[in-house]
């Protein structure tokens, strides 16, 4: 008797409150199955036939026994894949900007970079968990509240699939594909460049090992000169960001992307030339330091700057050509 009570309780406690009727019917059924003067062995045999109370209870419930079913699963995964990278980028950008703005000017370069990295990783993990949780919650609720119960998989727009959906999908060839890693790399590079450029006075320069500690001796650039070009630098960064965004949305190299890439390279090259032709760009202290170190007197500014500009132009040209080659790749 005892086992039967527990069994019925195990079933009914998984059901909504009002299902007393199921308990009564279950008891009547079990008693029907038992022989007269039954033993515990008989009871066990009957309960084995009825099976796990969890399974039986789930049979009575119309509620799904899964978090997200086949109808929503594809839309769920697609949304996650779309939103998680975007969240990552936003968090990294916010963390970088916060660190730049709170920069007092007396911290060491390594500390700043470690801060950005640490906070960035922590922030990304946090944001990823939050995003994952909320999207999953929304879909789990959808799964349980949608009464229409379409039996077919829904697309991301939550509509039934029609052949017209195919027209909206760009045909991406493998050779022209722009990988998300490339996009991500570009964004990280832009963020690092921005941080370094506007803090070059603390970051780029000569470091010396003084009593086992790395000390910043003299900056390489004249920060006032760098700051005076802030507008065109920001403009170049905006152009870069726009290209990255355009590449991300398109997903592949096209003639348009290649032309945008050309424009971006022209803009950044012009900015580079403007900055590096300024004769006050390099810090006088650095030149003095350099000359003392090697015990020579020479004008390093001229050749150095020409070298940088040439290098920049060469890389820009290679990048532009590669862009067009990818855009015109067949297949």
């Amino acid at each position, binding site marked *: 008797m005892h086992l039967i009570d527990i069994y019925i309780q195990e079933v009914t406690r998984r059901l909504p409150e009002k299902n007393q*009727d*199921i308990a*009564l*019917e*279950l008891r*009547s*059924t079990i*008693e*029907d*199955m038992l022989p007269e003067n039954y033993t515990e062995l008989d009871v066990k045999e009957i309960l084995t*036939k*009825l*099976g*796990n109370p969890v*399974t*039986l209870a789930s*049979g*009575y419930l*119309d509620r799904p026994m899964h978090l997200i079913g086949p109808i929503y699963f594809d839309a769920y995964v697609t949304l996650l894949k779309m939103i998680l990278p975007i969240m990552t980028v936003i968090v990294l950008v916010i963390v970088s900007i916060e660190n730049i703005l709170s920069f007092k000017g007396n911290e060491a370069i390594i500390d700043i970079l470690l801060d950005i990295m640490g906070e960035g990783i922590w922030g990304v993990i946090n944001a990823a968990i939050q995003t994952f949780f909320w999207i999953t919650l929304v879909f789990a609720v959808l799964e349980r509240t949608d009464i229409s119960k379409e039996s077919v998989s829904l697309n991301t727009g939550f509509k039934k699939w029609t052949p017209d959906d195919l027209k909206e999908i760009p045909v991406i060839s493998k050779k022209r594909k722009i990988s998300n890693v490339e996009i991500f790399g570009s964004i990280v590079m832009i963020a690092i460049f921005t941080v370094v450029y506007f803090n070059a006075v603390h970051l780029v320069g000569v470091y010396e090992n003084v009593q086992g500690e790395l000390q910043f001796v003299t900056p390489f650039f004249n920060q006032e000169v760098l700051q005076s070009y802030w507008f065109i630098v920001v403009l170049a960064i905006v152009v870069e960001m726009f290209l990255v965004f355009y590449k991300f949305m398109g997903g592949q190299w096209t003639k348009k992307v290649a032309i945008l890439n050309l424009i971006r390279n022209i803009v950044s090259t012009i900015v580079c030339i403007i900055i590096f032709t300024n004769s006050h760009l390099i810090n006088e202290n650095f030149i003095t330091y350099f000359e003392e170190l090697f015990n020579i007197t020479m004008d390093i500014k001229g050749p150095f700057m020409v070298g940088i500009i040439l290098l920049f132009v060469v890389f820009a040209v290679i990048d532009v050509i590669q862009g067009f080659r990818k855009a015109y790749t067949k297949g």
Partner: protein
Amino acid sequence: MSNLLNSFITELRRGTLTLAVLSQLRVPQYGYSLVQILEKSNIVIDQSTLYPLLRRLEKQDLVVSSWDTTESRPRKYYVLSEYGKEILEQLMKEWEKTSRELYILLKGEEGDAPN
């Protein structure tokens, strides 16, 4: 191998279960009596499937239930509703049609089809 075969057989039978149950409910039956009838016809049904199925059929208005308290033990009886009878008729026709078609398909020649 035999696991795979078993899962196919289970799947095949699952579809016919509702029809088998409905066909026996022209006269009132209670849970266990239905199990016994089905077992006599060699139709194996998981009991953890059958009882919830009866409830679902009732919810869908195919069967009606009533408690009989006149005997020593109260029992819940299920019997086809008018709507349930209609559905059963159509399901039976559909079943005959499907099995005939499948039989022809499997044998590969029309002449051997049963009537």
